[in-house]
């Protein structure tokens, strides 16, 4: 029977998919436009302790660098992160991971970061610069109550041991 055929498969349906495709390419364009403007502001502002740049020709994948905040156990250390932007950016957050090993209560061994602004508290206003600043402040002020790395969370109480362990781990991996 005719009514059993999905109305979407008809003429109207195919027209809609065409619209969807053109919309998709426009989306990609607007995402790369926004990422370019973010790169501009990041380079113009020249914030201390953070930097980021697209990884090769792909504007959707960036490599960020964070310097450990001064007067914390992380001072003097640098951390590399990967930032991957979905096609829905900035409506959906980028996936941000540590590439360098990071022994931190809210970072797991694979480099995944537990940070609310990268999940449910994401806002379209946030950009690479504010993400990196947030992660930098997360380093100095971990959320001990919901740790991804329980060992780090327990060790955080004793800052001297933490620093010692940190330098040993980082040294071991950097050498």
């Amino acid at each position: 029977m005719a009514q059993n055929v999905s109305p979407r498969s008809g003429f109207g349906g195919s027209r809609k998919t065409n619209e969807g495709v053109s919309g998709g390419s426009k989306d990609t364009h607007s995402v790369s436009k926004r990422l370019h403007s973010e790169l501009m502001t990041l380079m113009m502002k020249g914030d201390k302790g953070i930097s980021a740049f697209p990884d090769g020709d792909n504007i959707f994948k960036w490599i960020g660098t964070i310097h450990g905040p001064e007067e914390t156990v992380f001072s003097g250390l640098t951390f590399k992160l990967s930032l991957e932007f979905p096609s829905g950016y900035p409506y959906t957050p980028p996936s941000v991971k540590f590439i360098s090993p990071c022994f931190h209560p809210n970072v797991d061994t694979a480099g995944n970061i537990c940070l609310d602004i990268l999940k449910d508290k994401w806002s379209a206003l946030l950009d690479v610069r504010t993400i990196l600043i947030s992660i930098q402040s997360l380093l100095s002020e971990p959320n001990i109550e919901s740790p991804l790395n329980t060992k780090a969370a327990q060790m955080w109480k004793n800052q001297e041991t933490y620093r010692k362990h940190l330098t040993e781990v980082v040294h071991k991996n950097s050498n």
Partner: protein
Amino acid sequence: MASSSSTASTEEASTSQPEKKEETKQKKEDDGEESDKESDEKMFECNICLDTAKDAVVSYCGHLFCWPCLYQWLETRPNRQSCPVCKAAISRDKCIPLYGRGGSGKDPRSKIPPRPPPTRTEQTDNGRFSWGSNEGNGGFHMSFGIGAFPFGFFASAFNFGAPGTAPAGANFMTPQQIEEQEFLSKVFIWVALIFIVWLMLA
């Protein structure tokens, strides 16, 4: 003579100095204007696409967005709609369109944003096979009136609009759907005729 010339030269010098001062002042003003222009342009940047706001709307909390950008932001989180800047509660009705001098003066919110997320609701509504649903897109009305006045059925079965007149929901209908509707109305005519013949014979 020497003294007069010296005064003249000093006069010249004194007159040229303020000129220079004025020049530097002018330069400073120019710089100020340029930076003002830059900050002015940034003032009117959308908080989502970071570009000059097009079809601008401003939220009750005072933050500027392009309507397409804000629309998409609200669509991505229909359950907890908040301002991207200050997280205040926000919705379609809690923002004000901005009309500049060069604008069209149309409410940007009335426009369908250029890239809406795919919504299929109206299609599933029309595709539903519903007996006797009179949502304005059917064109025929059906009721089973066997009883005191069986010809009520006859009357209602032929109560469809003349073929060719566009039903109210026609703008949502694909040619295939219209075909389906025509097919269905033919089926109902035959059912009605058979029923009437049966009534005559019985």
